[in-house]
Protein backbone atom coordinates (compact mmCIF):
# COMPACT_ATOMS: atom_id res chain seq x y z
CA UNK A 1 0.00 0.00 0.00
CA UNK A 2 1.20 3.44 -0.95
CA UNK A 3 1.23 5.34 2.31
CA UNK A 4 1.98 8.64 0.64
CA UNK A 5 -1.56 8.43 -0.71
CA UNK A 6 -3.34 8.14 2.64
CA UNK A 7 -6.55 10.11 2.26
CA UNK A 8 -7.45 11.92 5.47
CA UNK A 9 -9.83 14.49 4.03
CA UNK A 10 -13.47 14.44 5.12
CA UNK A 11 -16.47 16.58 4.24
CA UNK A 12 -19.23 18.22 6.22
CA UNK A 13 -21.88 19.74 3.99
CA UNK A 14 -19.89 21.17 1.08
CA UNK A 15 -16.92 21.94 3.20
CA UNK A 16 -13.75 19.89 2.95
CA UNK A 17 -11.51 19.34 5.99
CA UNK A 18 -7.90 18.29 5.32
CA UNK A 19 -8.29 15.81 8.14
CA UNK A 20 -10.93 15.07 10.76
CA UNK A 21 -9.02 16.51 13.71
CA UNK A 22 -10.41 19.74 15.11
CA UNK A 23 -10.13 21.55 18.41
CA UNK A 24 -13.20 22.18 20.54
CA UNK A 25 -14.75 25.50 21.42
CA UNK A 26 -13.65 27.04 24.68
CA UNK A 27 -10.57 24.87 24.97
CA UNK A 28 -8.39 26.38 22.27
CA UNK A 29 -8.91 30.09 22.69
CA UNK A 30 -8.78 31.55 19.19
CA UNK A 31 -5.70 29.66 18.07
CA UNK A 32 -2.75 32.00 18.78
CA UNK A 33 -2.46 30.61 22.33
CA UNK A 34 -1.28 27.34 20.76
CA UNK A 35 1.11 28.69 18.13
CA UNK A 36 4.13 27.94 20.32
CA UNK A 37 3.18 24.27 20.43
CA UNK A 38 1.66 23.19 17.15
CA UNK A 39 1.35 24.00 13.49
CA UNK A 40 -2.23 25.24 13.46
CA UNK A 41 -2.39 24.85 9.70
CA UNK A 42 -2.11 21.09 10.09
CA UNK A 43 -5.44 20.92 11.90
CA UNK A 44 -8.61 19.92 10.11
CA UNK A 45 -10.33 22.79 11.81
CA UNK A 46 -10.66 24.87 14.91
CA UNK A 47 -13.78 26.01 16.72
CA UNK A 48 -13.18 29.27 18.53
CA UNK A 49 -14.58 30.29 21.90
CA UNK A 50 -18.36 30.72 22.25
CA UNK A 51 -19.28 34.11 20.82
CA UNK A 52 -22.34 36.17 21.68
CA UNK A 53 -23.86 39.35 20.31
CA UNK A 54 -22.70 41.47 23.23
CA UNK A 55 -19.64 41.14 25.42
CA UNK A 56 -20.03 38.92 28.49
CA UNK A 57 -17.94 38.82 31.62
CA UNK A 58 -18.90 35.22 32.35
CA UNK A 59 -19.29 33.82 35.84
CA UNK A 60 -17.38 34.69 38.98
CA UNK A 61 -14.42 32.61 40.05
CA UNK A 62 -13.80 29.82 41.02
CA UNK A 63 -14.77 28.52 37.62
CA UNK A 64 -12.91 25.24 37.58
CA UNK A 65 -12.79 22.05 39.62
CA UNK A 66 -10.88 18.89 38.98
CA UNK A 67 -12.79 15.61 39.13
CA UNK A 68 -11.76 11.96 38.63
CA UNK A 69 -10.47 11.82 35.04
CA UNK A 70 -12.21 15.05 34.25
CA UNK A 71 -12.91 18.65 35.14
CA UNK A 72 -15.81 21.00 35.69
CA UNK A 73 -15.93 24.45 34.17
CA UNK A 74 -18.27 27.32 34.74
CA UNK A 75 -16.75 29.89 32.42
CA UNK A 76 -20.18 31.03 31.29
CA UNK A 77 -19.39 32.19 27.78
CA UNK A 78 -17.02 35.00 28.69
CA UNK A 79 -16.22 36.74 25.41
CA UNK A 80 -15.84 40.24 24.02
CA UNK A 81 -18.88 40.05 21.75
CA UNK A 82 -19.21 39.51 18.03
CA UNK A 83 -18.05 42.99 17.01
CA UNK A 84 -14.73 42.68 18.79
CA UNK A 85 -14.41 39.22 17.29
CA UNK A 86 -14.96 40.53 13.77
CA UNK A 87 -12.84 43.65 14.12
CA UNK A 88 -9.97 42.60 16.35
CA UNK A 89 -9.69 38.84 16.59
CA UNK A 90 -10.68 37.76 13.11
CA UNK A 91 -7.91 39.77 11.37
CA UNK A 92 -5.33 37.99 13.52
CA UNK A 93 -6.53 34.49 12.62
CA UNK A 94 -8.07 34.81 9.18
CA UNK A 95 -4.96 33.57 7.42
CA UNK A 96 -4.82 30.23 9.21
CA UNK A 97 -5.01 27.51 6.58
CA UNK A 98 -7.60 25.52 8.42
CA UNK A 99 -11.38 25.65 8.75
CA UNK A 100 -12.23 28.17 11.43
CA UNK A 101 -15.67 27.69 12.95
CA UNK A 102 -17.22 30.24 15.24
CA UNK A 103 -19.19 28.80 18.14
CA UNK A 104 -22.31 30.99 18.28
CA UNK A 105 -24.34 31.38 21.43
CA UNK A 106 -27.08 33.60 22.81
CA UNK A 107 -29.86 34.11 25.30
CA UNK A 108 -32.60 34.66 22.74
CA UNK A 109 -33.23 33.43 19.22
CA UNK A 110 -32.73 36.98 18.03
CA UNK A 111 -29.26 37.17 19.54
CA UNK A 112 -28.26 33.96 17.83
CA UNK A 113 -29.55 35.27 14.52
CA UNK A 114 -27.82 38.63 14.78
CA UNK A 115 -24.53 37.04 15.76
CA UNK A 116 -24.70 34.52 12.93
CA UNK A 117 -25.49 37.30 10.46
CA UNK A 118 -22.32 39.11 11.43
CA UNK A 119 -20.22 35.95 11.14
CA UNK A 120 -21.77 35.21 7.75
CA UNK A 121 -19.97 38.28 6.40
CA UNK A 122 -16.50 36.99 7.29
CA UNK A 123 -14.89 35.57 4.19
CA UNK A 124 -12.45 33.23 5.95
CA UNK A 125 -14.93 31.72 8.34
CA UNK A 126 -16.48 28.78 6.47
CA UNK A 127 -18.87 27.70 9.18
CA UNK A 128 -20.51 28.14 12.54
CA UNK A 129 -21.22 25.78 15.36
CA UNK A 130 -24.54 26.70 16.90
CA UNK A 131 -24.11 26.21 20.63
CA UNK A 132 -27.51 25.31 22.03
CA UNK A 133 -25.94 23.38 24.85
CA UNK A 134 -23.92 25.56 27.19
CA UNK A 135 -24.74 24.50 30.74
CA UNK A 136 -23.08 27.52 32.32
CA UNK A 137 -25.36 30.44 31.55
CA UNK A 138 -28.55 31.39 33.31
CA UNK A 139 -30.63 32.17 30.25
CA UNK A 140 -30.66 30.42 26.91
CA UNK A 141 -27.68 28.20 26.39
CA UNK A 142 -28.49 24.66 27.34
CA UNK A 143 -32.20 25.37 27.63
CA UNK A 144 -32.39 25.61 23.84
CA UNK A 145 -30.76 22.24 23.46
CA UNK A 146 -32.91 20.26 25.86
CA UNK A 147 -36.21 20.34 24.02
CA UNK A 148 -36.99 19.71 20.37
CA UNK A 149 -39.17 22.78 19.80
CA UNK A 150 -36.61 25.24 21.13
CA UNK A 151 -33.74 23.51 19.34
CA UNK A 152 -35.74 23.73 16.13
CA UNK A 153 -36.62 27.37 16.70
CA UNK A 154 -32.99 28.50 16.97
CA UNK A 155 -31.70 26.29 14.21
CA UNK A 156 -34.45 27.27 11.80
CA UNK A 157 -34.06 30.97 12.49
CA UNK A 158 -30.29 30.96 12.08
CA UNK A 159 -30.54 28.85 8.92
CA UNK A 160 -32.49 31.70 7.29
CA UNK A 161 -29.57 34.11 7.66
CA UNK A 162 -26.52 31.86 7.71
CA UNK A 163 -25.59 30.49 4.32
CA UNK A 164 -22.38 28.59 4.94
CA UNK A 165 -21.80 25.37 6.85
CA UNK A 166 -23.85 25.23 10.03
CA UNK A 167 -23.43 22.49 12.56
CA UNK A 168 -25.56 22.39 15.69
CA UNK A 169 -23.93 21.46 18.97
CA UNK A 170 -26.18 19.37 21.16
CA UNK A 171 -26.49 19.04 24.89
CA UNK A 172 -25.95 15.60 26.41
CA UNK A 173 -28.23 16.48 29.31
CA UNK A 174 -31.30 15.01 27.64
CA UNK A 175 -33.34 11.82 27.66
CA UNK A 176 -33.21 11.26 23.94
CA UNK A 177 -30.43 12.94 22.01
CA UNK A 178 -31.34 11.26 18.73
CA UNK A 179 -34.74 12.99 18.68
CA UNK A 180 -33.14 16.39 19.03
CA UNK A 181 -30.59 15.57 16.34
CA UNK A 182 -33.34 14.55 13.94
CA UNK A 183 -35.28 17.70 14.71
CA UNK A 184 -32.39 20.04 13.88
CA UNK A 185 -31.50 17.98 10.82
CA UNK A 186 -35.02 18.52 9.56
CA UNK A 187 -34.67 22.30 9.71
CA UNK A 188 -31.43 22.49 7.81
CA UNK A 189 -28.43 21.73 10.00
CA UNK A 190 -25.46 20.62 7.87
CA UNK A 191 -24.03 18.62 10.71
CA UNK A 192 -24.38 17.75 14.37
CA UNK A 193 -21.69 18.41 16.89
CA UNK A 194 -21.74 16.53 20.20
CA UNK A 195 -21.31 16.35 23.07
CA UNK A 196 -21.10 19.53 25.08
CA UNK A 197 -20.38 19.16 28.79
CA UNK A 198 -22.58 17.24 31.23
CA UNK A 199 -24.17 19.24 34.00
CA UNK A 200 -22.35 18.29 37.17
CA UNK A 201 -21.12 19.54 40.52
CA UNK A 202 -18.32 19.38 43.05
CA UNK A 203 -18.47 20.01 46.78
CA UNK A 204 -15.59 20.63 49.13
CA UNK A 205 -16.40 18.51 52.19
CA UNK A 206 -14.06 20.53 54.40
CA UNK A 207 -15.53 23.95 53.65
CA UNK A 208 -19.01 22.47 53.01
CA UNK A 209 -19.38 24.66 49.97
CA UNK A 210 -19.76 24.04 46.27
CA UNK A 211 -16.38 24.37 44.59
CA UNK A 212 -17.70 26.46 41.70
CA UNK A 213 -19.14 29.94 42.19
CA UNK A 214 -22.15 28.77 40.19
CA UNK A 215 -22.61 25.54 42.20
CA UNK A 216 -23.03 23.45 39.03
CA UNK A 217 -20.78 23.39 35.98
CA UNK A 218 -19.99 21.35 32.90
CA UNK A 219 -18.10 18.07 33.11
CA UNK A 220 -15.56 17.27 30.39
CA UNK A 221 -12.58 14.98 29.91
CA UNK A 222 -12.04 11.21 29.67
CA UNK A 223 -14.61 10.57 32.42
CA UNK A 224 -17.37 11.37 29.92
CA UNK A 225 -15.94 9.55 26.91
CA UNK A 226 -18.13 6.45 27.25
CA UNK A 227 -21.26 8.62 27.38
CA UNK A 228 -20.14 10.74 24.44
CA UNK A 229 -19.34 7.67 22.37
CA UNK A 230 -22.77 6.22 23.05
CA UNK A 231 -24.47 9.45 22.03
CA UNK A 232 -22.44 9.78 18.84
CA UNK A 233 -23.38 6.21 17.98
CA UNK A 234 -27.08 6.81 18.70
CA UNK A 235 -27.16 10.02 16.67
CA UNK A 236 -25.27 8.40 13.81
CA UNK A 237 -28.05 5.82 13.52
CA UNK A 238 -30.68 8.53 13.55
CA UNK A 239 -29.48 11.19 11.10
CA UNK A 240 -27.96 11.36 7.62
CA UNK A 241 -25.89 14.50 8.14
CA UNK A 242 -22.31 14.20 9.38
CA UNK A 243 -21.29 14.34 13.01
CA UNK A 244 -18.44 16.10 14.78
CA UNK A 245 -17.80 13.87 17.77
CA UNK A 246 -16.14 14.87 20.99
CA UNK A 247 -16.00 14.23 24.72
CA UNK A 248 -12.87 13.03 26.46
CA UNK A 249 -10.71 12.42 23.42
CA UNK A 250 -7.14 12.16 24.73
CA UNK A 251 -5.33 10.35 21.91
CA UNK A 252 -5.68 8.89 18.44
CA UNK A 253 -7.25 5.66 19.69
CA UNK A 254 -10.06 7.64 21.26
CA UNK A 255 -10.44 9.63 18.05
CA UNK A 256 -10.74 6.46 16.00
CA UNK A 257 -13.35 5.08 18.37
CA UNK A 258 -15.48 8.16 17.77
CA UNK A 259 -15.12 7.76 14.01
CA UNK A 260 -16.03 4.06 14.21
CA UNK A 261 -19.10 5.09 16.21
CA UNK A 262 -20.11 7.42 13.40
CA UNK A 263 -18.25 10.72 13.66
CA UNK A 264 -16.98 12.31 10.45
CA UNK A 265 -14.75 14.72 12.32
CA UNK A 266 -13.64 14.80 15.93
CA UNK A 267 -12.89 17.65 18.29
CA UNK A 268 -10.30 17.72 21.03
CA UNK A 269 -11.23 19.71 24.10
CA UNK A 270 -9.91 19.22 27.61
CA UNK A 271 -6.91 17.25 26.33
CA UNK A 272 -5.46 20.51 24.99
CA UNK A 273 -4.99 21.64 28.59
CA UNK A 274 -3.01 18.59 29.53
CA UNK A 275 -0.90 18.53 26.39
CA UNK A 276 -1.13 21.60 24.17
CA UNK A 277 0.44 19.62 21.34
CA UNK A 278 -1.98 16.70 21.59
CA UNK A 279 -3.81 17.54 18.37
CA UNK A 280 -0.69 16.92 16.28
CA UNK A 281 -0.16 13.59 18.03
CA UNK A 282 -3.73 12.62 17.25
CA UNK A 283 -3.22 13.32 13.54
CA UNK A 284 0.03 11.31 13.56
CA UNK A 285 -1.65 8.48 15.43
CA UNK A 286 -4.55 8.30 13.02
CA UNK A 287 -2.09 8.03 10.13
CA UNK A 288 -0.23 5.23 11.91
CA UNK A 289 -3.49 3.39 12.56
CA UNK A 290 -4.50 3.68 8.92
CA UNK A 291 -1.17 2.26 7.79
CA UNK A 292 -1.29 -0.55 10.30
CA UNK A 293 -4.83 -1.48 9.31
CA UNK A 294 -4.27 -0.89 5.58
CA UNK A 295 -6.87 1.83 5.35
CA UNK A 296 -6.33 4.14 2.39
CA UNK A 297 -9.29 6.45 2.88
CA UNK A 298 -10.32 7.55 6.33
CA UNK A 299 -13.92 7.81 5.20
CA UNK A 300 -14.12 4.03 5.40
CA UNK A 301 -13.70 4.29 9.16
CA UNK A 302 -16.71 6.54 9.66
CA UNK A 303 -19.46 4.50 11.28
CA UNK A 304 -17.27 1.49 10.56
CA UNK A 305 -17.93 -0.34 13.80
CA UNK A 306 -18.50 -4.01 13.04
CA UNK A 307 -21.56 -5.84 14.31
CA UNK A 308 -21.19 -8.02 17.40
Amino acid sequence: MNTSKLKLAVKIGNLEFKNPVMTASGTFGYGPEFEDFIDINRLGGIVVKGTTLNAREGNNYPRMAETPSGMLNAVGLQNKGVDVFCNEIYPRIQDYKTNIFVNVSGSTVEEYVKTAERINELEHIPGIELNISCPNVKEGGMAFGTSCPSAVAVTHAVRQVYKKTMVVKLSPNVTNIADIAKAVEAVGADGISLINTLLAMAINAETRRAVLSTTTGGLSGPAIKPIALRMVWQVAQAVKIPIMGMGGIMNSTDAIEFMLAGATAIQIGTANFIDPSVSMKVIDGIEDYMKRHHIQDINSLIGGMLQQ
Partner: protein
Amino acid sequence: MTTTYAKKHVNLLNIIENKKINTQYFILKVQAPHDISNLLPGQFVNILVADTRHAFLRRPISIYDIHPQERTIDLLIQVVGEGTHLLSKLKAGEQVDILYPLGKSFSLLESGKIALLVGGGVGIAPLLFLAKKLYRKGVDVHILLGGKGSNNIIETKNFEKYGKVYIATEDGSQGERGLLTQHSILRKSDFDMIYSCGPDAMMRAVANIAAKHTIECEVSLENMMACGIGSCLCCVTPTKSGHQCVCSDGPVFNTKTLEWNK
Protein backbone atom coordinates in the same frame (compact mmCIF):
# COMPACT_ATOMS: atom_id res chain seq x y z
CA MET B 1 7.89 49.06 29.20
CA THR B 2 6.60 45.97 27.49
CA THR B 3 8.40 42.76 28.29
CA THR B 4 9.01 40.21 25.57
CA TYR B 5 8.25 36.75 26.84
CA ALA B 6 10.03 33.57 25.83
CA LYS B 7 8.41 31.00 23.56
CA LYS B 8 6.54 28.35 25.53
CA HIS B 9 7.59 24.72 25.57
CA VAL B 10 6.08 21.46 26.63
CA ASN B 11 8.82 18.98 27.35
CA LEU B 12 9.98 16.04 29.38
CA LEU B 13 12.62 17.55 31.64
CA ASN B 14 15.29 15.59 33.44
CA ILE B 15 15.14 15.70 37.20
CA ILE B 16 18.58 16.61 38.51
CA GLU B 17 17.74 16.61 42.18
CA ASN B 18 14.77 16.38 44.52
CA LYS B 19 15.82 17.98 47.79
CA LYS B 20 13.64 17.50 50.82
CA ILE B 21 13.60 20.60 53.03
CA ASN B 22 11.31 19.25 55.70
CA THR B 23 8.15 17.11 55.76
CA GLN B 24 6.21 19.83 53.99
CA TYR B 25 8.59 21.32 51.46
CA PHE B 26 10.93 20.11 48.73
CA ILE B 27 12.89 21.62 45.88
CA LEU B 28 12.77 19.95 42.50
CA LYS B 29 15.65 20.82 40.19
CA VAL B 30 14.92 20.11 36.53
CA GLN B 31 17.03 20.63 33.45
CA ALA B 32 15.73 22.13 30.24
CA PRO B 33 16.99 21.05 26.82
CA HIS B 34 17.60 24.65 25.70
CA ASP B 35 18.41 28.13 26.85
CA ILE B 36 16.38 29.35 29.81
CA SER B 37 18.10 32.67 30.41
CA ASN B 38 15.02 34.56 29.28
CA LEU B 39 12.79 33.18 32.05
CA LEU B 40 11.56 35.91 34.36
CA PRO B 41 10.66 36.17 38.05
CA GLY B 42 6.93 35.72 38.63
CA GLN B 43 6.59 33.31 35.78
CA PHE B 44 5.52 29.76 36.50
CA VAL B 45 5.53 26.29 35.02
CA ASN B 46 2.72 23.76 34.74
CA ILE B 47 3.65 20.21 35.75
CA LEU B 48 1.90 17.05 34.61
CA VAL B 49 2.00 14.97 37.73
CA ALA B 50 1.25 11.56 36.32
CA ASP B 51 -1.75 9.80 34.95
CA THR B 52 -3.45 9.34 38.25
CA ARG B 53 -7.12 9.58 38.90
CA HIS B 54 -6.53 12.26 41.48
CA ALA B 55 -4.29 14.60 39.55
CA PHE B 56 -5.73 14.87 36.08
CA LEU B 57 -4.70 18.40 35.19
CA ARG B 58 -1.27 19.99 35.41
CA ARG B 59 -0.14 21.66 38.63
CA PRO B 60 1.03 25.30 38.40
CA ILE B 61 4.29 25.95 40.27
CA SER B 62 6.28 29.20 40.36
CA ILE B 63 9.84 29.42 39.16
CA TYR B 64 11.86 29.52 42.36
CA ASP B 65 15.24 30.01 40.79
CA ILE B 66 17.07 29.41 37.53
CA HIS B 67 20.68 28.58 36.70
CA PRO B 68 21.07 29.52 33.04
CA GLN B 69 24.50 27.95 32.65
CA GLU B 70 23.33 24.53 33.80
CA ARG B 71 19.93 25.18 32.22
CA THR B 72 18.29 24.15 35.47
CA ILE B 73 15.10 25.44 37.03
CA ASP B 74 14.42 25.12 40.76
CA LEU B 75 10.85 24.64 41.94
CA LEU B 76 9.98 25.06 45.61
CA ILE B 77 6.95 22.94 46.34
CA GLN B 78 4.74 22.38 49.36
CA VAL B 79 2.95 19.07 49.72
CA VAL B 80 -0.76 19.87 50.00
CA GLY B 81 -2.58 17.07 48.17
CA GLU B 82 -2.19 14.05 45.95
CA GLY B 83 -0.47 15.88 43.10
CA THR B 84 2.24 17.55 45.12
CA HIS B 85 2.64 14.36 47.15
CA LEU B 86 3.40 12.41 43.98
CA LEU B 87 5.81 15.11 42.83
CA SER B 88 7.64 14.85 46.14
CA LYS B 89 8.40 11.22 45.36
CA LEU B 90 10.11 11.89 42.03
CA LYS B 91 13.77 10.99 41.95
CA ALA B 92 16.88 12.32 40.23
CA GLY B 93 17.24 10.56 36.90
CA GLU B 94 13.51 10.41 36.26
CA GLN B 95 11.69 12.79 33.96
CA VAL B 96 8.73 15.07 34.39
CA ASP B 97 6.48 16.70 31.80
CA ILE B 98 6.61 20.47 32.17
CA LEU B 99 4.93 23.31 30.29
CA TYR B 100 6.94 26.53 30.60
CA PRO B 101 7.48 29.43 30.97
CA LEU B 102 4.01 30.73 31.68
CA GLY B 103 2.57 34.04 32.79
CA LYS B 104 3.83 37.56 33.14
CA SER B 105 6.65 38.63 35.39
CA PHE B 106 6.99 41.12 38.19
CA SER B 107 8.09 44.53 36.95
CA LEU B 108 11.68 45.13 37.94
CA LEU B 109 12.69 48.32 39.75
CA GLU B 110 15.68 50.25 38.51
CA SER B 111 19.04 50.48 40.24
CA GLY B 112 19.03 52.56 43.44
CA LYS B 113 15.38 51.92 44.26
CA ILE B 114 14.23 50.17 47.43
CA ALA B 115 12.08 47.03 47.29
CA LEU B 116 10.24 45.08 49.95
CA LEU B 117 9.37 41.45 49.16
CA VAL B 118 6.70 39.92 51.39
CA GLY B 119 6.23 36.16 51.29
CA GLY B 120 3.89 34.06 53.41
CA GLY B 121 4.26 30.27 53.55
CA VAL B 122 5.00 28.77 50.14
CA GLY B 123 4.30 32.25 48.76
CA ILE B 124 8.03 32.81 49.01
CA ALA B 125 8.39 30.63 45.92
CA PRO B 126 8.35 33.35 43.24
CA LEU B 127 10.30 35.81 45.41
CA LEU B 128 13.82 34.32 45.46
CA PHE B 129 14.31 34.67 41.73
CA LEU B 130 12.85 38.18 42.01
CA ALA B 131 15.23 39.09 44.85
CA LYS B 132 18.18 37.84 42.81
CA LYS B 133 17.22 39.83 39.72
CA LEU B 134 16.57 43.00 41.71
CA TYR B 135 19.81 42.62 43.64
CA ARG B 136 21.76 42.20 40.43
CA LYS B 137 20.14 45.33 39.02
CA GLY B 138 21.35 47.26 42.07
CA VAL B 139 18.05 47.54 43.88
CA ASP B 140 18.14 47.66 47.69
CA VAL B 141 16.24 44.52 48.59
CA HIS B 142 14.38 43.84 51.84
CA ILE B 143 12.62 40.56 52.37
CA LEU B 144 9.93 39.79 54.91
CA LEU B 145 9.12 36.12 55.39
CA GLY B 146 6.36 34.80 57.59
CA GLY B 147 4.60 31.64 58.68
CA LYS B 148 2.95 29.86 61.57
CA GLY B 149 6.18 28.68 63.18
CA SER B 150 9.84 28.15 62.40
CA ASN B 151 8.90 25.05 60.40
CA ASN B 152 7.35 27.34 57.81
CA ILE B 153 10.33 29.66 57.69
CA ILE B 154 12.61 28.03 55.18
CA GLU B 155 15.36 29.01 52.81
CA THR B 156 16.28 32.20 54.69
CA LYS B 157 19.98 31.61 53.92
CA ASN B 158 19.20 31.75 50.24
CA PHE B 159 17.28 34.99 50.55
CA GLU B 160 20.04 36.58 52.64
CA LYS B 161 22.31 36.46 49.60
CA TYR B 162 20.21 39.14 47.95
CA GLY B 163 18.94 41.38 50.71
CA LYS B 164 18.09 41.91 54.34
CA VAL B 165 15.72 39.30 55.69
CA TYR B 166 13.01 39.96 58.31
CA ILE B 167 10.95 37.23 59.88
CA ALA B 168 7.56 36.97 61.56
CA THR B 169 6.09 33.82 63.08
CA GLU B 170 2.70 33.50 64.66
CA ASP B 171 4.08 31.44 67.53
CA GLY B 172 7.09 33.68 68.01
CA SER B 173 9.54 30.83 67.47
CA GLN B 174 11.55 32.97 65.05
CA GLY B 175 11.71 36.70 64.34
CA GLU B 176 8.91 38.96 65.52
CA ARG B 177 5.87 37.27 67.03
CA GLY B 178 2.61 37.82 65.19
CA LEU B 179 1.12 37.88 61.75
CA LEU B 180 3.47 38.77 58.98
CA THR B 181 1.36 41.82 58.24
CA GLN B 182 2.02 43.10 61.77
CA HIS B 183 5.79 43.09 61.29
CA SER B 184 7.45 46.43 62.09
CA ILE B 185 9.15 46.66 58.70
CA LEU B 186 5.72 47.26 57.19
CA ARG B 187 5.49 50.50 59.11
CA LYS B 188 8.28 51.94 56.98
CA SER B 189 7.13 53.95 54.01
CA ASP B 190 10.27 54.50 51.95
CA PHE B 191 9.88 51.50 49.62
CA ASP B 192 9.43 52.09 45.94
CA MET B 193 7.58 48.85 45.51
CA ILE B 194 6.17 46.07 47.65
CA TYR B 195 6.06 42.67 45.96
CA SER B 196 3.98 40.04 47.68
CA CYS B 197 2.90 36.45 47.39
CA GLY B 198 1.08 34.27 49.89
CA PRO B 199 -2.41 33.54 51.16
CA ASP B 200 -5.13 35.74 49.73
CA ALA B 201 -5.93 37.47 53.03
CA MET B 202 -2.26 38.27 53.57
CA MET B 203 -1.84 39.81 50.13
CA ARG B 204 -4.93 41.95 50.64
CA ALA B 205 -3.59 43.21 53.95
CA VAL B 206 -0.20 43.95 52.40
CA ALA B 207 -1.90 45.77 49.54
CA ASN B 208 -3.83 47.90 52.02
CA ILE B 209 -0.68 48.81 53.91
CA ALA B 210 1.06 49.68 50.63
CA ALA B 211 -1.89 51.80 49.57
CA LYS B 212 -1.81 53.66 52.89
CA HIS B 213 1.83 54.54 52.29
CA THR B 214 1.13 55.12 48.58
CA ILE B 215 3.68 52.50 47.64
CA GLU B 216 3.20 50.59 44.41
CA CYS B 217 2.29 46.97 45.10
CA GLU B 218 2.47 43.88 42.94
CA VAL B 219 1.00 40.55 44.02
CA SER B 220 1.21 37.09 42.51
CA LEU B 221 -2.26 35.53 42.58
CA GLU B 222 -3.41 31.94 42.60
CA ASN B 223 -6.52 30.56 40.98
CA MET B 224 -7.84 27.20 39.78
CA MET B 225 -6.18 26.67 36.42
CA ALA B 226 -6.91 24.22 33.66
CA CYS B 227 -4.67 25.28 30.74
CA GLY B 228 -2.20 27.80 32.13
CA ILE B 229 -1.89 29.50 28.73
CA GLY B 230 -4.92 31.76 28.56
CA SER B 231 -7.08 29.52 26.42
CA CYS B 232 -9.78 28.22 28.78
CA LEU B 233 -10.74 31.33 30.76
CA CYS B 234 -11.06 29.25 33.93
CA CYS B 235 -8.67 31.23 36.09
CA VAL B 236 -10.09 34.74 35.98
CA THR B 237 -9.84 37.40 38.62
CA PRO B 238 -11.94 40.57 38.59
CA THR B 239 -9.98 43.68 37.57
CA LYS B 240 -10.82 47.23 36.65
CA SER B 241 -10.82 46.09 33.03
CA GLY B 242 -13.08 43.10 33.65
CA HIS B 243 -12.22 39.46 34.20
CA GLN B 244 -8.58 38.77 33.49
CA CYS B 245 -6.76 35.45 33.37
CA VAL B 246 -4.39 34.84 36.25
CA CYS B 247 -2.36 32.50 34.08
CA SER B 248 -1.73 34.79 31.12
CA ASP B 249 -2.62 38.35 32.19
CA GLY B 250 -1.00 37.51 35.57
CA PRO B 251 -0.16 35.81 37.85
CA VAL B 252 1.44 39.14 38.79
CA PHE B 253 -0.96 42.06 39.06
CA ASN B 254 -0.47 45.58 40.26
CA THR B 255 -2.99 45.83 43.08
CA LYS B 256 -4.28 49.12 41.64
CA THR B 257 -5.79 47.17 38.77
CA LEU B 258 -7.59 44.59 40.90
CA GLU B 259 -11.25 44.64 41.91
CA TRP B 260 -10.69 42.53 44.98
CA ASN B 261 -14.12 43.06 46.44
CA LYS B 262 -16.13 41.78 43.49
